[in-house]
């Protein structure tokens, strides 16, 4: 009996997926978008739970947060008859509206290309495009353009070395989310890697929702569009009349 248990323990320890596990904490697992929402900072922290001695190969951690996917059309301008016109267009099947990756070190060292392909961690892997028409030879340039434009406005970011890892056990990082967030489930993944290989993955979601007035207005615009339109007009007319009346009083005084 004892030997059997010892055997089992040994097997359990040898199984790579179980050898090390992530115990995660988030400073918040819900982001409420209120009228004065001005971006959010999420602290991702946790510990590595293990029942075996620490392997010799150094441990690395990757934190990736992805916003809801949305299909896009990317257009490219070309000069025709002296003016710049949209000519080619490529449909991107899905691209996350927000994507942030933080790592403990240079991306190349932390994650091998094979593992990146398998788990789709880096930004180019998170975007999928299959629908490029055959007339367009350089479909990749369109995907690159999405990444370039979104990196520029802060929707996509790679922060190498932003995850702090202490004694191969405690890790933490903070990810700032911009003010221009879309509603939805933000898929959050934490990878532990050794020598570029993924040792374990932990997945959770951060819930980003409009609340209060924002929620009410959004729902009304979708569920009762006519009422919403009439309300907009009523406000406009009332404001126009109000300003006119106020100015008349000002002038009379």
């Amino acid at each position, binding site marked *: 009996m004892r030997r059997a248990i010892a055997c089992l323990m040994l097997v359990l320890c040898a199984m790579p997926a179980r050898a090390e596990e992530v115990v995660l904490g988030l400073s918040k697992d819900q982001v409420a978008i209120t*009228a004065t929402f001005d971006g959010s900072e999420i602290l991702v922290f946790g510990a590595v739970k293990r029942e075996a001695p620490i392997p010799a190969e150094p441990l690395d951690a990757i934190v990736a947060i992805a916003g809801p996917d949305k299909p896009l059309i990317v257009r490219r301008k070309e000069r025709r008859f002296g003016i710049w016109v949209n000519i080619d267009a490529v449909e991107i099947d899905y691209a996350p509206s927000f994507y942030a990756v933080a790592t403990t070190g240079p991306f190349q060292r932390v994650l091998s290309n094979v593992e990146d392909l398998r788990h789709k961690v880096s930004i180019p892997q998170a975007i999928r495009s299959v629908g490029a028409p055959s007339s367009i030879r350089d479909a990749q340039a369109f995907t690159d353009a999405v990444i370039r*434009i979104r990196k520029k406005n802060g929707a996509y970011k790679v922060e190498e070395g932003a995850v702090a890892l202490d004694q191969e056990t405690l890790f933490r990082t903070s990810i700032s989310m911009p003010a221009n967030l879309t509603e939805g489930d933000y898929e959050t993944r934490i990878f532990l890697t050794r020598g570029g290989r993924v040792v374990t993955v932990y997945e959770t979601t951060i819930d980003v929702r409009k609340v209060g007035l924002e929620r009410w207005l959004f729902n009304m615009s979708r569920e009762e569009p006519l009422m919403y339109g009439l309300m907009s*007009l009523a406000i406009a007319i009332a*404001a126009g009349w109000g300003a006119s009346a106020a100015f008349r009083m000002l002038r009379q005084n």
Partner: protein
Amino acid sequence: MQIYLPIAEVSVNAFLLLGLGGLVGILSGMFGVGGGFLMTPLLFFIGIPPAVAVATEANQIVASSFSGVLAHLRRKTVDLRMGTVLLVGGLIGAAVGVVIFNYLKSLGQVDLLVRLCYVVFLGVIGGMMFFESLRAIRNTRSGKPPKRKKHNWIHGLPLKMRFRTSGLYISVIPPVLVGIAVGILAAIMGVGGGFIMVPAMIYLLGMPTKVVVGTSLFQIIFVTAFTTLLHATTNFTVDIALAVLLLVGGVIGAQIGTTIGTRMKAEQLRILLAIMVLAVCAKLALDLLLTPSEIYSIGDAGGH
């Protein structure tokens, strides 16, 4: 102070929007233009999605035009009769314009057509107004009496009607035709059409500049109210929070603009409008001609 807009899903500075609304409101009150042709590009620039910008802009124009019309009504510079005639033509034109717009959309490249339309119309109208008002200013400086109104073929048409406020006794056919033409263009170009309507009323119908502004605003209210409802029910793109911020600035601006407008001479008003129209035209033309810094653009799949 940052405000998150519920429909546009972006966060913007509230004071920036108040300022923009005020600025466009002043122009609206002064010149009788809705200001959509100025505001829409400005909203694109601060990161509002195009569909939301166009729809919300229409709602804001309702407010500033209404505010402006009330100010003009007090001064009795609105020709309600002429406004109604133009409006009837305008609504017919808008319906025709929507059909044309959808046909062009099925052909693709509607974006380019709209831009070219803008450049050509703004250029032609702005140029004509600029030189005409320049001549008028020069004539008053040198003391020459202004030219008498010509008695042309327009006065020979049937169905004559008296427009007392404008001091006109003309056939209703030209105003209806002007209304239809402006309605078509407004629907295709996605604007209220004030900047085409104002010069058309001055030069084609021979209305006095002072009356033109109020009358133009009067008919813009109805056109843009209709547009707002259409966008709210079909595209769900009217952002009420954005509209409120813009229109608070807009209605105040419209009152100030009207006051400035009534203190200015008609030809000065016309030359300023001409300069503004030409500036927008030049900006659009440069966008088409100069090499853009980013030749790729991201759009929503399915939408336009």
